[in-house]
């Protein structure tokens, strides 16, 4: 995505585990973000245990906010040629390839990336291993030499990169830090004195605006931080990609705030634990991915029936079953929305980016408590693992509504009806142990006091009540605001979750053409704001729904509301849908 007027460069640093490609990526991210560039990074590694495969740090650096990691790379750094060769088809026209020009031994035919560099690519050979050995007496700092070379070739301000390296290694020892700085400087010097610049990427030593408040955070880290900010008291979970990181962070941090983390024997137990926590009036959460959500489905129904506030984060990945554990997908929408037995309404939220992972996690707790319901937060592997430069959101996050947490008044405790029918469906709840406010919480259909009651009339009344508060939530949650052009649209793009970034980037592009394009990007995925969808549809000559699943799970929901056939971009490319794909489809439409 090289954009020569401004800076918009996508790097891929590729190696085998132990080559330090991910570390190099993280230094690059940190340094670039501190310079004031916007970054989006995603680390890619195969499903198998990390030790065996390739790992790739994919980083996009831009002087404008970035919506996607970019699909094609402008620069590939090879720390392991065998792996890097498999990355060649991810390169943009004119891409730069940086490789070790002096590996210790000859390699066999077709095992050197230099052997694949063709016109249309620019190769820079640097003796990475040799320079690393000079600096640190081992080849382990080849990644740092490569960073130095990148700084020299592309004129990336070196001081920021040095700081990022120093910060990391000083934790180990001053000596290690200094030898790595030496490795960096050797790479820089080599690039400055020995390479003839043949590419057009130039950061011109520019620092668009040094920032101290910026943090480099992944979606998972943002969720974990939101748990801490929201005063979570219980996290229970069973490890699973890509959600495990949330548990890892909370296991460290939550006890410091008086909270508890329980690693349970499975996902059923995990949700059981947090239903207990929610019932007890403590903010409780679990995080899982598709296979775990499947296991949790019955307990989710209990939380619906017993009106217990809990939050379930689901980091979607390729499925069904174990599926593609390390590849992203948005295919758990159906199970999140419709995965209950009986009429089992549950709100589903989906953040679009890392900042929203934080905001919507906090919101999820508010919604869970205010509407006494389980809330499912749908992230995905791409969003969970990708890293962005953000500043932590401050304030009350009221853009997604303000909700009242209705607790029953113990003074009025006589004849306590925990599930009393109210005009908005929300009944004041009690915290167990409050004198006079005890009640049975049960998965059986019950009356207003919580006592089992199976008459058809009662079942209808209570089902209506549960849907009523569901509708109350929809009314309280601001309807999604259309983005882009007003009035009649040549094309309207609807999307959700992490695909919103690609859709927005596509919109940005379409606005540079003569096409009238707009977007509608709900974050409250269920219940849907039907009126907003209908209004947007009525203005859109062509209506696209873009999402990362095969069967068009959201498209099906949208079609049911807008009563027309939508144009589906429903793809499972084992990565985010590229904005170019949306542009291509939109560009080919009749106006």
């Amino acid at each position, binding site marked *: 995505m090289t954009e020569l007027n401004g800076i918009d460069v996508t790097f891929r640093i590729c190696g085998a585990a132990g080559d330090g490609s991910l570390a190099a990526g993280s230094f690059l991210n940190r340094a670039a973000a501190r310079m004031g560039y916007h970054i989006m990074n995603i680390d890619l590694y195969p499903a198998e245990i990390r030790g065996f495969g390739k790992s790739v740090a994919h980083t996009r650096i831009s002087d404008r906010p970035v919506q996607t990691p970019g699909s094609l790379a402008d620069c590939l750094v090879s720390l392991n040629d065998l792996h890097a060769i498999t990355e060649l088809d991810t390169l943009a026209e004119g891409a730069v390839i940086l490789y070790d020009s002096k590996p210790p031994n*000859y390699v*066999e*035919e077709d095992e050197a990336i*230099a*052997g694949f560099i063709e016109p249309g690519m620019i190769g820079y050979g640097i003796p990475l291993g040799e320079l690393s050995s000079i600096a640190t007496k081992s080849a382990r700092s080849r990644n740092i030499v490569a960073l130095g070379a990148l700084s020299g070739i592309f004129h990336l301000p070196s001081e920021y990169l040095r700081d990022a390296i120093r910060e990391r290694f000083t934790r180990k020892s001053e000596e290690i830090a200094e030898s790595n700085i030496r490795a960096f400087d050797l790479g820089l010097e080599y690039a400055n004195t020995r390479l003839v610049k043949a590419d057009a990427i130039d950061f011109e030593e520019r620092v668009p605006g040094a920032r101290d408040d910026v943090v480099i955070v992944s979606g998972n880290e943002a969720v974990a931080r939101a748990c801490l900010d929201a005063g979570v008291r219980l996290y229970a979970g069973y490890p699973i990609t890509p959600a495990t990181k949330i548990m890892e962070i909370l296991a460290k941090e939550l006890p410091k705030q008086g909270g508890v983390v329980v690693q349970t024997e499975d996902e059923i137990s995990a949700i059981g634990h947090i239903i207990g926590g929610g019932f007890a009036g403590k903010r409780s959460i679990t995080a899982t991915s598709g296979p775990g959500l499947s296991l949790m489905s019955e307990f989710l129904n209990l939380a619906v029936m017993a009106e217990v506030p809990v939050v379930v984060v689901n980091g979607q990945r390729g499925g069904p079953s174990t599926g593609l554990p390390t590849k992203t997908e948005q295919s758990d929408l159906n199970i999140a929305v419709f995965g209950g037995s009986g009429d089992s309404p549950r709100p589903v939220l989906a953040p679009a980016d890392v900042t929203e992972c934080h905001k919507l996690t906090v919101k999820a707790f508010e919604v869970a408590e205010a509407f006494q319901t389980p809330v499912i937060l749908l992230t995905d592997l791409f969003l969970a693992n990708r890293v962005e430069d953000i500043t932590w959101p401050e304030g009350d996050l009221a853009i997604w509504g303000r909700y009242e947490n209705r607790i029953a008044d113990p003074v009025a405790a006589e004849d306590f009806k925990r599930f009393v029918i109210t005009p908005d469906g929300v009944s004041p709840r009690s915290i167990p142990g409050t004198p006079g406010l005890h009640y049975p919480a049960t998965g059986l259909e019950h009356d207003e006091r919580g006592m089992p009651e199976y008459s058809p009339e009662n079942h209808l009344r209570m089902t209506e009540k549960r849907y009523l508060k569901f509708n109350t939530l929809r009314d309280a949650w601001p309807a999604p605001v259309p983005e882009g052009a007003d009035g009649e649209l040549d094309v309207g793009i609807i999307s959700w979750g992490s695909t919103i970034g690609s859709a927005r980037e596509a919109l940005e592009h379409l606005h540079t053409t003569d096409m009238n394009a707009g977007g509608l990007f709900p974050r409250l995925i269920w219940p849907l704001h039907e009126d907003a969808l209908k209004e947007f549809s009525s203005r859109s000559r062509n209506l696209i729904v873009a999402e990362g699943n095969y069967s068009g799970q959201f498209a099906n929901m949208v079609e049911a509301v807008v009563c027309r056939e939508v144009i589906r971009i429903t793809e499972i490319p084992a990565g985010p849908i590229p904005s170019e794909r949306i542009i291509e489809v939109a560009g080919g439409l009749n106006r």
Partner: protein
Amino acid sequence: MASEHYVIIGNGVAANAAVDILRQGDPDSRITVISREFFPFYYRHKLRFVISEELQEDQIVVRPPAHYREQNIRLRLGQEVQRVDLKEKTLYLKHMEKVHFTRLLLCCGGWPRIPEVHYTYRHHFTIVKGLSHAREFKEKLAGVKRVLMVGGDLVSLRITETLLRMGREVLFLIDRDSFWPLTLTDEIRTEFAERLTKHGAEVLIDDEITGIEEVAGIEEGTSGYEVTTRREKRISCDLVGAFFGLVPNVEFLFSSGLDIDRGILVDDHLQSRNPDVYAAGDCAQIWNPAINNYWVSIGWENARLLGEVAARNMLGESATAGAPKESALDYEGLKINTSWWHIYD
């Protein structure tokens, strides 16, 4: 035959002529073409138009890389063979990769000759063999007013024309022995000089360089040269172009065990002493039974024919490299035999 791996060092006219025959004759074989130049196959005789910016680089390309992909040929550009191990049938590339072959064709061309007497000044000389040189020449010309052309060969003649057209002053120092591939009689040399002078060049005959010193250039802020000659002339110029003809480019083969004299010694089937190794084009020194000696011939059309002959023999045919038709240069009425050098406009 399906298991053959033909590897060709070079991506010039000889190599490409050979590739076509090999692919046709052995459709299932693996073919690899290796060239240290990072640019597709191009017309060398059009380089002067790149220097004068009358042509863009892509306008001198004969074959783009896509052609090789279509023909299922692995094209390795910008990759230098540093060593050939005939016993292991392995090439060692500069970037530390091995390439194995079953049959090898050497089409590694020629390289500008720098006569021994001038060897010490070689760092001051600007040469034109490939596109990278043409680029360099073009870049240098930006700040150049006066060019000294030394040696003399058919390339230099063309480049002189180009420089004069570009409005540069040219001083031409004709070296008696190096107007290559021509042997100049005194009479022809004088006639040449006359014509060059008529075009605006200043010509020096019967003189030679005795010293070159880098000094400040004629234009402020540039660098130039102070050249002294045997006849005690002092010449100030901004660039010294050296054109003493081409010689086979075979240095990297010295340790290979192949027989090398001026070029790679091959029989009239272009086969070397190693039955799996052939040579064609400017790099080959070919046995000619008629003269009972080996000959080196430099020239585009000749290289093309030799490439074809070598490829046929590699496929098992029996083709011989007869001497190609000789060409003649007509330089404003002055007709000279140019061996196998074909005249292109």
